[in-house]
């Protein structure tokens, strides 16, 4: 619901859940309000998916049902991330930045995954040890349910990642030494929306973090084809399939993403966001990063 003011299409998960800021305390959502946000954008299939969820007598969505939906969709998203190897792509993008930080000074480097959801990508990278023993991982998400779930999953497999309840737009509680902190995310940028992105990147510069790699779908014909195929074959929840298709429509092209990053972060970072070829499919880049290298 925090994205309710955003223009353009919405994902069903965006309208099922809301919280107060800065506390992060959950706010009950009225089913009519949630379906209305989708219906007024002409997203009638999404509105029907909201209708199918149970509501209480006061008209608010049943929180247990919403929690189950949130978990089910995020569990499928985690598996999709594994399928297209987003964690490996993350490690690949972060490795050169981390190498430069190591060259400057010793000590622990922290990677903060903002809007981490179930923290799947971070758990995979942490468990692989691909970035080195001197790198620690912290996941941050505004949804306390997902933070709880991520924490349980990390413990279940003894993976050394800490998960915190907090806002991706104000991640300072996860940052102790900005000079040795890198910010990452996967699939967060299109949720924030174009209007909020300059402030998001500006916050990186204000906090003085060492760099970032934020991954988001690269829109285009082949991405649409690939996303449709993967969502049809790998996802079962109707909301997963709906939101997967919508997320492709919300994602920004590389040049636009680079422009909003530059607008927000200014000259604080060397920015890069590679154009993905449009003439042929390149599934390993269906989700690609906008990277901020330290100057």
């Amino acid at each position: 619901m925090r994205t309710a003011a955003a223009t353009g299409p919405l994902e069903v998960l965006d309208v099922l859940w809301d919280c107060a800021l800065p506390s992060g305390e959950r706010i009950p959502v009225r089913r009519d309000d949630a379906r209305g946000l989708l219906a007024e954008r002409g997203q009638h299939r999404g509105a029907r998916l909201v209708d199918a969820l149970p509501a209480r007598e006061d008209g608010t969505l049943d929180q247990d049902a919403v929690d189950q939906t949130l978990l089910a969709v995020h569990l499928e998203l985690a598996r999709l991330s594994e399928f297209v190897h987003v964690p490996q792509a993350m490690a690949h993008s972060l490795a050169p930045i981390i190498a430069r930080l190591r060259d400057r000074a010793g000590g622990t480097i922290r990677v903060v995954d903002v809007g981490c959801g179930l923290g799947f990508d971070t758990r995979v990278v942490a468990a692989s040890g691909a970035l080195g023993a001197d790198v620690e991982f912290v996941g941050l998400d505004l949804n306390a349910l997902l933070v709880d779930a991520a924490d349980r999953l990390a413990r279940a497999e003894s993976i050394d990642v800490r998960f915190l309840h907090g806002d991706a737009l104000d991640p300072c509680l996860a940052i102790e030494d900005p000079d040795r902190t890198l910010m990452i995310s996967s699939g967060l940028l299109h949720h924030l929306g174009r209007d909020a992105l300059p402030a998001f990147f500006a916050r990186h510069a204000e906090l003085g973090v060492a760099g970032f790699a934020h991954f988001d779908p690269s829109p285009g014909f082949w991405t649409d084809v690939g996303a449709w195929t993967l969502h049809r074959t790998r996802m079962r929840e109707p909301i997963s399939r709906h939101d997967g298709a919508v997320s492709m429509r919300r994602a920004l092209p590389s040049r636009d993403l680079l422009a909003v990053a530059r607008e927000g972060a200014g000259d604080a970072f060397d920015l890069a966001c590679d154009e993905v070829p449009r003439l042929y499919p390149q599934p390993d880049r269906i989700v690609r990063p906008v990277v901020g290298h330290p100057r």
Partner: protein
Amino acid sequence: MSGLVDTVQAWPIWGIGGPAWAALAALLVVVLQHGGTAGIHAAMGRDGMIDHRRAEAVGALRGTVALAALMGPVFAAWTVDALSSPERMDAYVRANEVLIAIYGPVTVVALLSFVLARTMPWQVRSNLNSAVLGTLELLRPWIAAAGVAAAAAATRDPGVAALGAAAVVTGLLVGPLTRRWWYARPVRLADLGVAPEAGRP
């Protein structure tokens, strides 16, 4: 007892020859592989773990059990019809050859992609997963139907066509059935591990 032995010895299957046995065995592998992978696909995205071999093993087992339950009656009908006379057996042997000519290469491509995906750099794995395995998964019902249509056309036998259609329909139901098995109960927080407070030293 000797009557039963005589009956078994009279089954026309003993005279079909090595290539026909090979086609039959290959078809059995294809069918079992379908059951196992359908079960594994159904298990995906339900446990949240980064190491989900246990979920996949359970998924493969469920897929195989569902396959046996769904296709068992079709197999029984095939057995009765095929063993009834050498002519009926010949029709099924011909159908098997056509089926394996279509399903065999697809299965080999899928298995090769799977093996390559396990051994190559992540960029190649990602591309194989999406472009090859994802596409084959999407086309699975159409490939299955194409095989049976080709077998029916090659044999011009209504019995082969009917049993083939039944096999495709029941085989394709393995995925939805095992998915329902996994999704019958929603995943709750407690399924994902111990609560953070309880787990803290």
